[in-house]
Structure formats: structure tokens, C-alpha cells
């Protein structure tokens, strides 16, 4: 939940950045028996956001399958945690403007978790994209 609020703050600070945000909510903890309430959805209030409920954690499964199929794309410190991971969550990824999702999800230009820990890097990259600078 803190991740949603942190991302909303970044969006507020970059109102003109050309972005599309896909927010995928999924059950992770034992109390996650239902999709987020409308008040929780309101934590991401920016109109560049689209929100989804992935009750079967389908996206998580696809991302894990993709990175395990291409370990060469990962840094050494990413391989071990991903080998053990069962669910991808509290996670954020940025994809360049030409990224296309075909059979497999494209590889992000940046990703990290938990969201609150990497939000400064996200902000920096959005800022760079907004000003036309390539980071």
C-alpha cells in the first residue's frame, strides 16, 4: 500500500510526463481475500493509471517464467532471489516507449522492489524521460 502512495507522489510531481501506468493488484498475504477497495484504488488517483486485479497471480507467474528462461538478462545479485521467488510483488518496472509485449513480456529498462525503496530511481528516470534525456 505504501508503494501505491509513493508512486502517486511521483506522478503528482510529473504531471506532464508521457506515461502509462499499469497497476496490477494481486493477493499475496493471507488477508488478501478480495480485490482492493475503491478507497485503496484511489491511492493511485492519476488519470494515467489503469488498475487491474490479478487474483490468480498470472502476471507474476509469467514474469518469473520469463526471467528464469533468460537468466543472462539478470545481474548476479538478482539471480538468487529470483530463483527462490514464488511471487513477484511490491515491484515496479519501467519499459521504454518502443517496448512491445509479444509472446513474452519485454525486459524492463529498470526494475526494483520494494517500491518505496526504488522510488527515487523511478523518479529520476521519469524526469529524464520527461526532459528527453536518456539515463
Amino acid at each position, binding site marked *: 500500500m505504501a508503494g501505491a502512495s509513493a508512486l502517486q507522489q511521483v506522478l503528482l510531481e510529473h504531471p506532464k510526463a508521457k506515461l502509462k501506468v*499499469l497497476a*496490477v493488484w494481486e493477493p499475496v498475504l493471507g488477508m488478501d481475500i478480495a480485490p482492493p477497495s475503491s478507497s485503496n484504488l*484511489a491511492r493511485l488517483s492519476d488519470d494515467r493509471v489503469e488498475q487491474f486485479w490479478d487474483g490468480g497471480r498470472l*502476471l507474476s507467474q509469467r514474469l518469473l517464467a520469463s526471467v528464469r528462461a533468460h537468466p543472462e538478462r539478470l545481474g548476479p545479485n538478482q539471480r538468487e532471489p529470483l530463483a527462490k521467488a514464488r511471487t513477484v510483488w511490491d515491484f515496479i518496472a519501467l519499459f521504454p516507449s518502443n517496448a512491445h509485449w509479444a509472446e513474452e513480456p519485454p525486459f524492463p529498462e529498470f526494475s526494483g522492489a520494494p517500491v518505496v525503496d526504488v522510488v527515487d530511481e523511478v523518479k529520476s528516470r521519469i524526469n529524464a524521460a520527461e526532459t528527453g534525456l536518456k539515463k
Partner: protein
Amino acid sequence: MMGLSVFLYLRYGPRQTPPGQPPFVRLNSGDFQVLIERFNSGRGSLRVLVMLSPT
């Protein structure tokens, strides 16, 4: 009975997204393609994918 009604409402009741956003989408294996299409429709923009837990 009341508990069941509350549970069903929490689980399946309508969700309202904030103004300006498309309606909330519940993904399943049959319509996961919706997410892929929404992703690809943003070509030309930086795409941000965030995965969150509701609690």
C-alpha cells in the same frame, strides 16, 4: 448469512476507479490478453508496471 453476504460483496462487489481512469479490470486466464493489449497500446510512452498487494 450476513457474514457470507459481506464476504461476497467484498470479493465480487463493484470497484470504482478514480475519475479519468478506465474501469477496474479483473484478470483471469481467459482474458489476460487485456493486460497485454493495454500495455502495447501505450507504445510511444514510458510504461510503468507496478505490482501491489491490497493489504
